[in-house]
């Protein structure tokens, strides 16, 4: 199963409902998220806008540099959309990859009426393009804030194989709202980075259960790092995108003050916890150790019950 750039007939609902977001390519996610045949790509692969840096390292390029941007319809309403291909260099941000997203967000700021969906799938900055990649992250963060100041909802969706790490997680933190699936992981530093810098006693990157309960979608949803928990299907993410666009908070000083207060409270309440299980217990979960194994519906019900007050923050 793989990506087809040129649209075919609308894939039937059964096909999409069985289709894992995690396993889908970036192009399949875009196609399944939007209304049938409505996607129109900007700077598509035929333009061959590729990285100017990778050839210096004798590395292969990709025609879209791992970033797909364009516009389409969601429930017949126009949206702008960006998707990272996590299998190409871990979905990492390089100069061209980043510039495509910056341009999309600036267009959203100027147009004012089209929400933006960002389908994250990234390990962070592409090391071969270090400075250009870091600059791209800064430009994108600024562009997200400018779009939000212009009243545009910017919604992040996280559920890909590369997760949402490094600079990608900073951008997700700037979004109006984020939806994450169990497979999604959101964290500034990845497991190996923490272990390398702080030692295995601090964080054992080989302990998959530890990685998932510390950075995975369930924990992010419970502590308020993500507003919605999505099932690992294309229709579930479509539903999350639709809802989060509608409930995007305004971007103003009151929202930032509320966010600062919310984060302060989080440290106050959970700062002494040694593990995510301790956090869940102190939130009021009666069987916190059972949370990682909960099925989608059970977990959504639990998360709605335990939800931290949103405080009009973000």
């Amino acid at each position: 199963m793989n990506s087809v750039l040129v649209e075919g007939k609308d894939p039937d609902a059964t096909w999409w409902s069985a289709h894992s977001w995690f396993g889908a390519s970036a192009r399949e996610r875009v196609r399944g998220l939007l209304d049938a045949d409505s996607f129109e790509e900007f700077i598509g692969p035929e333009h061959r806008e590729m990285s100017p840096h990778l050839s210096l390292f004798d590395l292969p390029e990709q025609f879209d540099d791992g970033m797909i941007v364009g516009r389409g319809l969601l429930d017949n309403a126009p949206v702008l959309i960006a998707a990272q291909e996590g299998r190409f260099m871990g979905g990492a941000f390089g100069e061209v990859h980043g510039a495509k997203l910056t341009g999309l967000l600036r267009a959203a700021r100027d147009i004012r009426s089209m929400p933006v969906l960002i389908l994250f799938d990234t390990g962070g900055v592409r090391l071969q393009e270090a400075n250009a990649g870091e600059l791209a992250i800064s430009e994108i963060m600024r562009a997200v804030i400018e779009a939000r100041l212009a009243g545009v909802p910017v919604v992040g969706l996280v559920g890909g194989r590369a997760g949402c790490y490094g600079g990608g997680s900073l951008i997700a933190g700037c979004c109006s709202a984020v939806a994450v699936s169990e497979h999604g992981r959101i964290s500034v530093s990845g497991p190996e980075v923490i272990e390398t810098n702080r030692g295995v006693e601090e964080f054992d990157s080989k302990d998959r259960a530890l990685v998932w309960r510390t950075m995975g979608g369930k924990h992010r949803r419970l502590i308020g790092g993500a507003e919605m928990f999505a099932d690992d299907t294309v229709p579930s993410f479509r539903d999350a995108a639709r809802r989060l666009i509608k409930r995007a908070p305004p971007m103003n000083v009151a929202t930032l003050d509320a966010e600062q207060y919310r984060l302060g409270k989080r440290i106050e309440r959970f700062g002494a916890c040694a593990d995510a299980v301790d956090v869940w217990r102190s939130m009021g979960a009666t069987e916190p150790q059972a949370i990682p194994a909960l099925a989608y519906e059970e977990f959504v019900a639990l998360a709605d019950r335990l939800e931290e007050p949103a405080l009009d923050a973000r």
Partner: protein
Amino acid sequence: MEHLNYRHTAQQRAPGSKRMALVGVVASGNLEVLVERVLPDRVCEVDIRTAAAGFGEIWRLVVADFVERRSPGGLKLSINDGGARPDMVSLRLAQAVRAIEGERL
């Protein structure tokens, strides 16, 4: 990186009216194929950039076999290769032609 280019005469024009399609991804053992309908009806060109240098003869054989089997007249196929094996390359080339002919993959 090695750059290879093969130009063939095909038996007939590839059916369909789509202008282009893209299949695959650049990853270890994988490749992407961008296929564009930009050439005269009987011409097929395959342009390859590969991370694995020194396999020109195998590429030549795989491409010749592809042109004979699929008759991709009028198509330019541009490949970014992350070190895919010949069987994977053959599958992606066939997939690319089916994509531009209009079949959903």
